[in-house]
């Protein structure tokens, strides 16, 4: 209720920037502006000046910036408006944020791949700077002076010569009547003029609401007259209902009825899994009713999926030649030379995302249109999925985005939002679908299970003369094409871009079938790729009797740009983000120095390990110190991470991301494992799918951000990949045990 009534229609009174900025993004259109749900402070003044889709200024001076990316804890909802405010020279306390609905006019809204700031930084600077120029022009015209003699200072335009001063709100209406300047007539601030970008004082826009319980997450969204639904999904992917008995369920107080959701037709994509929905007056009654449902399911091609034999299949494939994804020199010739050969195999299991807020959504179908509120990373995927499932136009699906109680990749897939829409169409009223934690874990789009085979020939100096790496896992592509067995985009996630100075190198990928839904998971394939590469690098270092940090630096080799093949769509990456080993070396050196590597005595059962991995264009090195006690339990007294993410908007938030990545990394390194028996997931809640708790988390995480003027790169994900190999290398240093599979809890250390 609080939500729907807060939607109001504003029609911009003037054209938007025409061709001055990124073309195609700025379009003249009416737009719905849902006022920030979590900061309802009465009526906002109507915008007097709206020079673009992204920003408007009201006559009371209130600046409203559109956040087109979702907020799931990484801070982009704050970071991008901060960039606008900085170039606008606005007072941040007068800035409000308007969360965008899903709409292609905003360009890509899929908040994944750690690229919100990277992809929109330049645009947001331009948005702010254009507004500033127009405000100056309006004030100068009013004063009858040259704009050149005017300047701005925190929400005011100043004419210093005469001491005159006007507030942004005071000239907003006049600015609205002026032509939008061309891009070349809009100066950007120099870095030294930035007041918000890169400043320690930045904090999350939603912080006060988050600590007082007023923040609105998807779990908190409501619509008038809505009912609650809990869905009994097929236990095995692709199963259909054979029969069901809902008599007992319907006797549960407050349960209204049950409804069927059809099982998808492959490929599953983001479609609902299917099942029986229990509709009730409240969440609890829906959950309780579901417990009394009796459903019989038919068979599925995935009913034979068992994790232990599947592992053997993956490992067997990893020992056979695969598809070559990068080739340098001739590894086979080098292997044949008779140098010392070292081989190793690594295994990593499925993982579940388990964001603290389980999947949830509320949707209403009415007159062929759908209105949805969801904690989604990708509101345009909500539009497309619902449109496709219901056979309506995607333009007829409006998706509002709430705060996300964590996402980690799970919430880029909107199957639960589609469930709410499908049920609402059947019921004729709004429906809130709430997944239990068990639903979340049983029916995830899992991080893939993977097997890696590594082989190196070692020269007389202890360095590899040849390095072969082969990786095998059910690809994410299987979610979109049921016949997909080879990885595609995953290869760029730390596999076809090894930054080592080795004359002969070949990277391969072998085929694997999927039996559960596979999806993106914070840092994705980088997790298993970095685990294999950096465990193996450390094995080679120890085999050569070398210091691990020095050996890693030797592997990386001299400062250079690593020649890589880029796809056409990655031209920006090639030009602005070349793989620069100088930056990689630097983070290794800093992490080692900060940790006191080699300078602190490590007592019995203690040790340090290092790994360095570039992902999402950010260079990260992590040192982990472990203490293995007499019972074999691993404690983590310290973690030291150095990162070079180029230009950083909110350094304190970036440190928070990397502190969190160490905890996320601890979860997957020590405990994380999802397994299946006859196609059914064995885990269901935090008792058997454990996360790191405070008492097992690293005692101290030190994050060092390298000062850089390079373009901004990712910060949400890149902290995760180096963590597990650094920890495992530390375990080896502490115990002499080389463990080659995740998680560590499966191996007895003493």
């Amino acid at each position: 209720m609080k939500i729907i009534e807060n939607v109001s229609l504003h029609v911009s009174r003037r054209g938007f920037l025409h061709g001055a900025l990124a073309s195609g993004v700025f379009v003249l259109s009416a737009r719905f502006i849902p006022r920030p749900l979590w900061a309802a402070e009465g009526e906002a003044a109507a915008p007097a000046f709206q020079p673009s889709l992204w920003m408007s200024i009201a006559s009371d001076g209130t600046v409203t910036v559109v956040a087109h990316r979702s907020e799931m804890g990484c801070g982009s909802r704050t970071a991008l408006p901060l960039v606008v405010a900085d170039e606008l020279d606005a007072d941040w306390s007068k800035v409000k944020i308007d969360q965008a609905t899903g709409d292609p006019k905003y360009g890509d809204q899929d908040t994944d791949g750690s690229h919100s700031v990277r992809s929109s930084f330049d645009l947001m600077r331009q948005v702010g700077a254009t507004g500033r120029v127009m405000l100056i022009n309006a004030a100068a015209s009013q004063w009858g002076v040259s704009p050149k003699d005017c300047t701005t200072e925190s929400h005011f335009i100043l004419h210093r010569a005469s001491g005159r001063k006007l507030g942004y709100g005071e000239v907003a209406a006049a600015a609205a009547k002026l032509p939008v300047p061309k891009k070349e007539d809009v100066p950007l601030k120099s870095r030294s003029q930035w007041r918000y970008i890169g400043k320690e004082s930045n904090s999350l826009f939603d912080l006060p609401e988050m600590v007082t319980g007023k923040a609105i997450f998807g779990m908190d969204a409501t619509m008038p007259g809505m009912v609650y639904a809990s869905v009994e999904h097929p236990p095995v992917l692709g199963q259909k209902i054979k029969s069901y008995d809902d008599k007992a369920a319907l006797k549960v107080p407050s349960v209204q009825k049950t409804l069927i959701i059809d099982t998808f037709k492959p490929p599953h994509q983001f479609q609902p899994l299917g099942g029986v929905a229990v509709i009730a007056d409240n969440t609890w009654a829906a959950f309780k009713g579901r417990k009394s449902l009796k459903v019989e399911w038919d068979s599925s091609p995935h009913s034979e999926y068992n994790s232990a034999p599947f592992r053997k299949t993956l490992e067997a494939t990893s020992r056979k030649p695969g598809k070559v994804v990068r080739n340098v020199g001739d590894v086979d010739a080098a292997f044949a030379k008779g140098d010392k050969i070292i081989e190793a195999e690594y295994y990593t299991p499925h993982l579940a995302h388990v964001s603290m807020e389980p999947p949830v959504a509320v949707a209403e179908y009415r007159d062929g249109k759908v209105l949805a509120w969801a904690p989604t990373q990708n509101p345009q995927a909500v539009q497309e999925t619902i449109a496709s499932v219901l056979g309506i136009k995607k333009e007829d699906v409006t998706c509002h985005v709430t705060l996300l109680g964590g996402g980690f990749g799970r919430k880029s897939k909107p199957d639960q939002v589609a469930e709410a829409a499908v049920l609402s169409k059947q019921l004729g009223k709004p429906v809130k679908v709430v997944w239990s934690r068990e639903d979340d874990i049983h029916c995830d789009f899992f991080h893939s299970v993977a097997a890696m085979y590594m082989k190196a020939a070692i020269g007389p100096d202890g360095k590899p003369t040849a390095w072969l790496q082969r990786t095998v896992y059910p690809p994410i592509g299987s979610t979109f094409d049921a016949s997909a067995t080879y990885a595609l985009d995953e290869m760029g996630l730390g596999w076809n871009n090894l930054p080592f100075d080795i004359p002969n190198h070949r990277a391969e990928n072998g085929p694997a079938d999927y039996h559960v839904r596979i999806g993106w998971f914070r840092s994705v394939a980088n997790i298993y790729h970095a685990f294999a590469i950096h465990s193996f690098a450390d094995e080679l270092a120890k085999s050569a009797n070398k210091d691990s940090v020095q050996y890693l630096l030797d592997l990386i080799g001299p400062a250079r740009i690593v020649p890589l093949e880029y796809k056409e769509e990655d031209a920006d990456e090639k030009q602005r983000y070349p793989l620069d080993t100088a930056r990689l070396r630097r983070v290794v050196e800093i992490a080692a120095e900060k940790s006191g590597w080699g300078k602190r005595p490590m007592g019995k059962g203690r040790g340090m390990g290092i790994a360095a991995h570039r992902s999402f264009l950010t260079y990260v090195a992590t040192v982990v110190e472990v203490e293995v006690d007499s019972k074999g339990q691993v404690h983590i007294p310290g973690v030291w991470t150095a990162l070079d993410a180029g230009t950083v908007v909110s350094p304190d938030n970036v440190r928070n991301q990397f502190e969190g990545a160490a905890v996320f990394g601890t979860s997957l390194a020590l405990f994380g494992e999802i397994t299946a028996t006859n196609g059914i997931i064995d885990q269901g809640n935090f008792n058997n799918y454990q996360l790191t708790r405070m008492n097992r988390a690293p005692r101290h995480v030190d994050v060092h951000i390298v000062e850089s003027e390079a373009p901004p790169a990712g910060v949400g994900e890149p902290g995760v990949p180096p963590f597990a190999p650094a920890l495992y290398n530390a375990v080896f240093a502490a115990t002499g045990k080389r463990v080659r599979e995740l998680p560590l809890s499966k191996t007895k250390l003493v």
Partner: protein
Amino acid sequence: MIRFKVNGQEKTFDGDPEMPLLWYLRDVAELTGTKFGCGMALCGACTLHQNGASIRSCVTAMSDVGGTEITTIEGIAPMHPVQKAWMEIRVPQCGYCQTGQIMQAIAFLKDNKNPTDQDIDTAMSGNLCRCGTYQRIRAAIHQAAKHQTPKHPATTHPATKHKAAKETA
């Protein structure tokens, strides 16, 4: 008919006595600051205070609420030193678990004015944070302990002031 207080207000409930307090608060009373995370008292996202002590509302049946005083995050006003410390340390990432963390910390600090790291770990390890903000949570609790004057009641709502006064007496 079950009678109880929520944030100082008299309430009655005559629905399913098995309904957990969490879902009463969220779906019936429309107090959504208390979060659902697991339904099995494994994650602490639903933490609130019953007669001043922290409990997991996802496993507290309405039948066990009668005659008690419930305080949710919405009842913590004005801003508590723990919330202020959470702001100063900039603890949250996604923010979803943080109301439960804060309610757990407030109750804990009432009994332990000067906690060690070990004390905090013991008190807070039932509260999961998938974003991994534990280091900041620990720092914020230390900071709140420092700022909390001895006379400041642990929860400032009238409902719990009463309880705090009784404890002091």
